[in-house]
């Protein structure tokens, strides 16, 4: 079970930079983990973790931009803050296109870094919430039958039981029974909740297909 506390992963080949950043971030009350290179991070890292990456662009072996590409390939959307010795416009452009949150030059301006970190953590939490919500919806969807799913759609679209019965060539009584079952299985109490669930389900099932 991953820790629900956000973690800042600092990856830089220079131990002094790594250490000083860890100390600075630590003084702000955030959890920090440091890695000397990208490979070490990839070994330890769990996809469900919340937090962000502080990544040096220039590193021997795997560079910061290369790691960004790897994570994107693995569909890991953890926010990344890049740090660099001297900014290169081309690198900067690549970083932002790959979804970077910020691009900071050394020496690091502390308030700027902390702002970016907060922003990144917020993004990370949202992402994680979205992921877990989607998972919940999916689990619940697996409980209901196809007929119930059909009725769920019609109910969510605002049809009355009678209308649904006519549409599906069933008796209104049967539709009512199915509806009660749906509410029970999906742990829903009101029609509003059902509509909300339906919208989540659309969202969750659409990208997965």
């Amino acid at each position, binding site marked *: 079970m991953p820790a629900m506390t956000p973690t800042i992963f600092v990856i830089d080949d220079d131990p002094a930079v790594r250490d*000083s950043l860890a100390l600075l971030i630590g003084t702000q009350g955030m959890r920090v983990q440091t890695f000397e290179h990208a490979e070490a991070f990839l070994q330890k890292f769990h996809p469900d973790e919340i937090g962000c990456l502080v990544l040096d662009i220039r590193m021997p072996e795997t560079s910061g931009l290369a790691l960004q590409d790897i994570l994107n390939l693995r569909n890991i959307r953890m926010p990344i803050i890049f740090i660099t010795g*001297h900014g290169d416009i081309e690198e900067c452009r690549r970083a932002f296109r790959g979804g970077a949150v910020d691009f900071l030059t050394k020496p*690091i301006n502390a308030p700027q870094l902390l702002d970016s970190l907060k922003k990144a953590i917020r993004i990370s939490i949202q992402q994680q919430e979205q992921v877990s919500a989607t998972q919940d919806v999916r689990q619940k969807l697996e409980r209901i039958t196809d007929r119930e799913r059909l009725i769920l759609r019609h109910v969510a679209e605002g049809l009355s039981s009678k209308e649904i019965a006519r549409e599906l060539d069933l008796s209104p009584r049967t539709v009512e029974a199915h509806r009660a079952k749906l509410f029970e299985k999906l742990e829903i109490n009101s029609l509003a909740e059902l509509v909300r669930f339906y919208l989540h389900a659309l969202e969750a099932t659409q990208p997965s297909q």
Partner: protein
Amino acid sequence: MIGDLSMRVKASFVLLWLLLSLAILLAALFLTEESRQQQFEAATLHIKKTLEERLLICETAIYGFAELSAANYGSEQTRLRQFAQNIGTRYPYIYLMGFQPTVSLADREGFEAAMSFRSKHPFFIKDYNGQKDSGWQQAQFWRPAPARPYYIPLVDAQPASARRYDFMTGLDIARDQVLGPAVLQAIRSGEIEVTPPFNLQDGEHGFGYLKAVYREGVAPETVAERQDSVIGIILLGVRAETLLTVQGDSSRQLDLRLLPNDPQQPLGSIGTHPAATISTASSGWLHQMLFPSRQMQLSIERDYFPYRLEVFRGDDANRIPPPLYGLALGSGAFIAALLLLIAASQNNERLQSERYHETLHRERQQALITLESIDDAVLVIDGDYRVEYLNPKAALLLGVSQQRSVGMLLSEVWKVRFELARGAIADPVAACRQQLQRIELPENACLLRPDGQGAFIEGTVSPLLDQDDNLRSIVITFRDMAPLRQRMAEALERSEQRLKQHQAELARVARINTLGEMTSGIAHEINQPLSAIVSYNEACLSMLEDEEPDRILLKTALFSSVKQAQRAGHIVKKLREFVASKQAELSAVDVNQAVLNVITLIESELRDHAVTVDTDLAGELPRVQADAIQVEQVVMNLCKNAMEALMDLPGERRLFIYSEPRGQRVRVGVRDNGPGMPADTLQKVFQPFFSSKSQGMGLGLTISHTIIENMGGVLHAGNLDTGGAEFYFELPMIKPQGETEGARA
């Protein structure tokens, strides 16, 4: 082919054609001469025969008339007239025929009266006293005949066409100048007689046939009896020209004449044409030769006929027939054309032969000159190993005389051994002679020269075959390997030198670029500790805000910070050491050359950023005591700074680089038309790690400054009044005495 001939030759062939035609014409004429002669003779004979036949007809006519006259003497003369009419019609040359009776003096008056009565016209016997040829018509010449024993008046002229001679009626023909002698002769002889010719009214000639008619019918024995018994004379007039007119092609071109047998005869000849046309005197000798006038005289076999026939072929008969001209011209043209073709082909052959000889000569010359001038030795020997030829190079290499060697044995001039040969080597000349193939001289073939020295040679031995593939000569070509080896060694050395130069050049360029790369690397190096220091200190500051700061952690952070500051200091120290350790290699440097080198190096960069460069480099600038590479590093650094200052400039971007002497120094400056530098920047521009550029390291100018100061010079920065910035450095000139200690210090 004919076109190759000259105009003169062509013209002479036209002339030849004409001459040939003429010659053929003449030849044809000569060849046909005999046949023409024969033709002529045949024609002549034909004419003679015709003439004789006609004379016979006249004879027959006169006999017939005589018989008729004798039989019908004194009676009706109708038959006679009919006979005469018939004869005159059938034979046009007989124009008159009549019986002229003898009248005695006693009977004269009665006869004259009877005749006047019959013809209703006064009739008298008369004489003619005028000229022979004219005056017949004039009455004055006619006189009544005087008294004579007898008269033979002209009273009868048959046929009717003869009436025009009526004016002569009554003429006593026995006493006439012309007719008289013949009449008397006819009476005496009783035979046919012929009168001399006389002129007729129409200009023709005529002569008369006479025959006496006797009372007894036949002529009495004696002349006296004949004269007594004659009762008349028959006169037959003949037209000479008509008589001579013979029909037929062959005779048309001929002139016919009757010549008197007796040359004394006064009347002369009678001809179909005037005698003058017969003359050939006006024609040239050629004409005479070609067309000899033909003339033939034939006697007529009539004893009473006092003429002989002359047949003459005149000029008109000798015209060359046009077909002969055509034939002559045609055959002449044919022969001339044949000759022309032969001449043209011979001319062609001659030209080809000349060309061939010329080519042969030229090729020989080329071959000879080539052989004489090539740098390879060529030696030609015959099948018996005797030298046929050697070129000057061969003579030189072999150390023999070119002339004297010819005819010598190969072994006398060409001594070759094969050094360091692994196995036995066959004599290449012998091998070539045997195999009739080109043989390479073996490696390490060594030529022994007369001076005892050996020379390595290479070359080939080739057979020279004749047309039947038999060996004619052997050609040995060879060359001394020593110069080649030397040249190869030299070439190798030269290329090695070039390689070294290139390497040096590459190294130099690499070193110039090192400064830029170094500053970039240094920036990264220094940025790391700086970044760490900033972060440590920020962390400390943050911790200090806590009510109870973690002192140990604080201390650790500060300690780390100090360590990183030391690290940065260490890097800077190392950099200083690095720059200082670069002991300048001072030499005489041409700063202009350094500037030009740099412009070449950054050319593509200038182009990429659309920066144009103008230079004003002083000519004959004294050299400076400096390190060439370092000067170039500084110039490049200044140029790159200027280019970076121009990066954000819209519009024209210009660099201006100049050099000039300044007292004992040489100044090199780089100006740009950029925004220039603010005052505070200008003060700090040479301080380490100061940069006005977001990505600048702040080291380039510092290092440049250090480099220039190390070489005893100064580097200045400033703004131009016209806008833009200027950086320039000055370096000391080389003193003429070569005193350089100051620069080294």
